[in-house]
C-alpha cells in the first residue's frame, strides 16, 4: 500500500514541487494551503503516514497546526516534518516542542527530501 502524505505550505511552488517529487517516488499525496486547511484534511482522512508542514503560513501557522494535530487521537503519533530554513533555530525547537518528528531544511534537493521522508515515514 502506498504511503500517504499530507503536504501543507502556503507557497504553491513549494507544495507542488514536494508533491511532484513524492509522487514520482510512488507516494500518495494530499495538499493543504495552510494550517487550518491542513486540519480539515486531517478530519476527512482516515490516515496519513506522514505530514510535511511549513511553519510561517497565514490563517494558522505550522506550530499551531502540529499542536492541534497531536490532539487528534488518529494523528497523535504520526510523523510530522517541519519545513524550515537554517536561520530558524528557534522555530526548529518550537516545532519539536509542539511535537514534530523532524525537519527539512530549505532549500532542499529531491534526494534530500526523499531521504528525510524515508527516514521518518517508513
Amino acid at each position, binding site marked *: 500500500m502506498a504511503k500517504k502524505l499530507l503536504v501543507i505550505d*502556503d*507557497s*504553491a*511552488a*513549494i507544495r*507542488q*514541487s514536494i508533491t*511532484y*517529487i513524492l509522487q*514520482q517516488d510512488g507516494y500518495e499525496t494530499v495538499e493543504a494551503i495552510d494550517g487550518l486547511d491542513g486540519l480539515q484534511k486531517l478530519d476527512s482522512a482516515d490516515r496519513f503516514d506522514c505530514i510535511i508542514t511549513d511553519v*510561517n*503560513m*497565514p490563517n494558522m501557522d505550522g506550530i499551531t497546526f502540529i499542536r492541534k494535530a497531536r490532539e487528534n487521537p488518529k494523528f*497523535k*503519533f*504520526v*510523523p*510530522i516534518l517541519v*519545513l524550515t*530554513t*537554517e*536561520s530558524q533555530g528557534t522555530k526548529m525547537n518550537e516545532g*519539536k516542542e509542539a*511535537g*514534530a*518528528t*523532524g*525537519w527539512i*531544511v*530549505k*532549500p*532542499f534537493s*529531491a534526494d*534530500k527530501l526523499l531521504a528525510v521522508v524515508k*527516514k*521518518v515515514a*517508513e
Partner: protein
Amino acid sequence: MIDKFRETFREEAEELLSQLEDVLLELETRPDDVELINAAFRAVHTIKGSAGMFGFEKAGRFTHDLENLLDACRSGLRAVDSRVIDLSLRARDKIRAMLAEADSSAPFDEEAQALMAEFRAAVEDGSQLSPPPGSGKAGSVKAGSVKAGSGTVGATSLSAGSGHGSSGADTGRTATMQPEATQTGADKPGFKAGTDETYRIVFEPAPEIFMNGTKVLKLIEELAELGTLSVVPAVEAIPPMDLLDPERCYVSWNAVLTTSSGINAIRDVFIFVEGASRVVIEHLDIPDEDGGRQKRVGEMLLERGLVRPEDLGEALKSQKRLGEVLLENKLLKPSDLESVLAEQAHIKHAQEHQHDTGAMSVRVASVKLDQLVDLVGEMVTLQARLTSSTSTLGDTTLSGIAEQLERLVSQLRDNAMSVRMLPIGSTFNKFRRVVRDLSSELGKDVELLTEGAETELDKTVIERLNDPLVHIIRNSLDHGVESPDDRRAAGKPPKGTVCLKASHSGAHVVIQVSDDGKGLDMDAIRRKATERGLIAPGEILSDADAGLLIFRAGFSTAVSVTSVSGRGVGMDVVKREIDSLGGTVSVETSAGVGSTISLQIPLTLAIIEGLLVRIADEHFVLPLSSVEACIELPDDAGQTSNGSRLLSYRGDLLPYVELRDAFAIQGTVPGFRQVVVVNSQEHKIGFVVDAVIGDYQTVIKPLGRMFKDVSGISGATILGDGTVALIIDFNRLAHSARAAQARSA
C-alpha cells in the same frame, strides 16, 4: 526536476513582492502594527526559503540579510523606522530584478552589495541602540544614549560599513554562511570518508520519544545500513506489566559500528532526536593486529565505569569466568556485559579486516598458493623436530634460536593460510544463473538475494561447496517456492525469493539458503520416511530431526519426479559432502512461510585442531571439534552376544569401535586404555585407543592415489619427530560400525 515549478515560483514571488510593497507602505503609517511586520517578514521569508530551490540562489542569498533585518523588527530588537522601510522597498525592487535575470550565478552588482551591507548595518544599529518597542525594560541610561546618538551612530555605522567594510561584511557573511557549511558537511560524509573507521555509539532515547512519531528501531536500522554494526539493547529497564507505561520508552542501546561513511553520517542518523535523547558517538582506535593487544573484558568494564575496581579485583580471584561472577553477584547488568563482549568481538573482526580496503592486489596462480601452503606445512613439521631435538641437546643458544623460529613459522603458517582465503561471493554469482535458468524451466518467478558475499573461506572449501549449494538451491526452487498462481492464492507476492547468506561464526562459516516458499511438509516427510523404512512406524521425531530426513539417501517427497530435483538423489549428496568437509547441516522450516537450510563449515581444511592418540606405536589424529570426551575403558565393557560393542556412558549405552581391530594393529594390548567419545552425525560413538596424547594443531597432507580407497582415513600429518600420523575419518568408521550393528541385530 524542480525546474518545472520555476515559473510557478516566479509568479508566486511576483505576487508576494507586490503584497510586500503594499504592506511596507502601510507600515510607514502604522509602524507599530505587529500584524503588518509579521506579514512583511513572512513574504520575505517565503521568497528566501524557496528561491534557492527553483534556481534563484542569488535572490535567496540577497534576501537572507533582509530577512534578518525584518526578523529583528518582528522580535522587537529593532524599531520599524523610515530607514527600515526605505531599505526594504529598495530591496524589494532589487529582488524583483534578480528574479527576472536569467543567470543566477552572476556575482552581485554594486547596488546589491551596498544594500546587503546596509541591511546588516541596520540590524546592528538597531540591536545596539533602539529599545524594543513597547518594552519598558531598557534602562534610562540606554534610553538616553539612544536619543543623543541615534543620528550620529547611524552615520558611524554606515561609515564603518564602507570604511572597514570588508571586516564588517565578512563577519556578517561568516555568521550567516556557517549553518550552510555544516549543512553541506552533513550531506557529504565526513572528511575521513572512504576508509573504515570504528565508532562506539550509546543511544538512550528520551522516555517520551514515541510521542513525536519517532520510530526508534528505524534509527538502529539506519545505523546498520552504514556498515558493520554490533548492537546490544539494554532491556533490563523494561518494568513488569503493572508498572509499564506503554507510551514510554525504556530501552537503550550500546553499539559498535565500523563504517566508511564518516562520523557525520552517524550524526545524521540521530539528527532529529539529539538533544532530548542522549547520543554519544566516540571514535575507537583499532590497534594493529600485530602491534596492539586486545583489551580484556575487565579492562573494558572499568573504562566504561560499569564495575567498581574493588568489585573487579574480587571477581578476578574466582576461578570462574569474570562475566559470570559479576552477573551472579549482580554487580553488572547482563546487557552491559553483552555489549562489552560484542564490542570485543567487533574490534577483533575490524582488526582482521582493516587492511582489506585500498590495498593493492597481485594475481597469483592458485597452484603456487597450494605449493606455498604445502611448503609451510613441511616447515611446521621440520620446525617441530628442531624444537624437540634442541631440547634433548640442552644447548641454550640453540633452543633460543629454535624458539624464535617457532614463533616466525607459526606466523608464516597463519599468513599462508590467509592468502588462500577467498570471499565466497565469487561462487554466489554462479548461482544467479542457476536460479534464472531453473525458474524459467519451472515456470516460476524467483529472485536470488545474496548477503555476506565478502565472507572468506579457504579456496578448497569453496570449491567443494559448489555442488552441495547447487543441490540445495535447486531443491528450494523445485519444492520450496510455489508457482506464481499458488503464491497469489496464498496471499504472497508472485515473485518468490531465495536468499543465500554467508557469515562468520567462530572458526566456522555459516551458509544459509532460505526461501519464502511453502515450507517443508513435515507430515508428508514423516509419512514418506516411514514408507521407505527410514524411521520405524510410530517413531516420534522432532521437526528439526524430521527435516534432516530429506538428506537421507533415497528420499523424495515430490509426488512426481521432476527433471530438476531428480529421483531423490541430491540432498543426500549434500549431507555427505558437508560431513566430509567436517561441517553440519540443519533445517528450519515454517509451513507457508518458507524454509532455511544452514550449513556450518570449518574455515579451512588444510589445518585442523586435532586430538593426538596412540595405539601401540602408531599415532592417529581425531578432529578436536567433534570430540566430546575422553574416558577410561571400563573393565566390564565388551562384546555382547550379538557381536556389537557397547559400554555404558552417562547412563546410556554407547557403541564403540576398537581402532586396534579397525586398522589391524599388532602388539600387546595394555591393561589400561582410553575411549574417545565423538559426535558423528547426531550419534555418539566411542573409539578405543591405547593412550590420548593431547591437542595438536596440524597441517593435513592428502594421501596419494594409492590410498584413495582406504576406508577410515582421510589424510595424514607429520609429527615433530618425523613420523606420520593418520587422520581418522571417524564418520566413515562410525557409519560402518552402525551398519555392522544393524546387520547383526
